[in-house]
């Protein structure tokens, strides 16, 4: 997987958190990841299609996911439920959408994104098209650490 594909996702993650919940998030060093390796408790997943195909997943510890959605809604969310999954799904949608806009010119195509899916549970695995290598970018912030995993192939 071309590292040039990772940068748009890093930028859109930083920008989305800042604009949506006024949170500074700091990317760590991108690393190769095996399927299901870097997941926390709540993951938002979106598929990409077109001349670049694959998926992007944002994965959070439960406590951080609750804080994020509480901030988005301006209301305390204390349990894992529809409010939490909807909020994390929409956040993932926004990160994927704005990364896609940067990615489209690189692959010379207008890419499409799927509707978001949210998976909840300890040590769940995020499935992706088999054999597709993934790159995980760890992020840190004042309310917790999380991971963004990108698995894409082109052509």
């Amino acid at each position: 997987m071309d590292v040039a594909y990772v940068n748009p996702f890093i930028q859109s993650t930083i920008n989305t958190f800042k604009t949506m919940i006024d949170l500074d998030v700091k990317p760590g060093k991108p690393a190769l990841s095996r399927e299901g390796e870097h997941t926390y408790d709540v993951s938002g997943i979106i598929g990409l299609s077109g001349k670049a195909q694959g998926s992007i997943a944002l994965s959070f510890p439960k406590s951080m996911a609750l804080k994020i959605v509480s901030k988005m809604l301006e209301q305390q969310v204390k349990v894992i439920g529809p409010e939490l999954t909807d909020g994390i799904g929409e956040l993932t949608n926004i990160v994927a959408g704005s990364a896609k806009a940067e990615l489209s010119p690189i692959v010379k195509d207008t890419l499409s994104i799927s509707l978001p899916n949210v998976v909840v549970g300890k040590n769940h695995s995020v499935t992706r098209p088999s054999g597709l290598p993934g790159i995980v970018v760890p992020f840190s912030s004042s309310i917790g650490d999380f991971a963004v995993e990108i698995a894409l192939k082109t052509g």
Partner: protein
Amino acid sequence: MRILLVDDSSTMRRIQKNQLTALGLKDIIEAEDGKQAQEKLKAGMPVDVVLLDWNMPEMDGMAFLKIVRADATYNDVKIIMCTSESEKAKVLECLKAGANDYMVKPFTPESLQKKLGI
């Protein structure tokens, strides 16, 4: 000013509702997808502005936009796309289909205010 919020994400509808309320706009109706939005318009609810998401199940924002713009009854309804889709080709596609304006998620309350012209 009556506003119709169309977005499949309840979180996004709440965020926009909070922003609109803070701007003093309280006449807000909501729909979860294009189909529901179409039903609300058909039921004769007068609407001034539609804030319209693109990626939604059932009927997406583009399909809804085309249906509304094909009906002269709704000529005065202002439609502002509010979407995470931001490629130039996507923006042009919406404007060509009759959207009045375009906002890319994530947006600030200030940019919403500006787009509404209030």
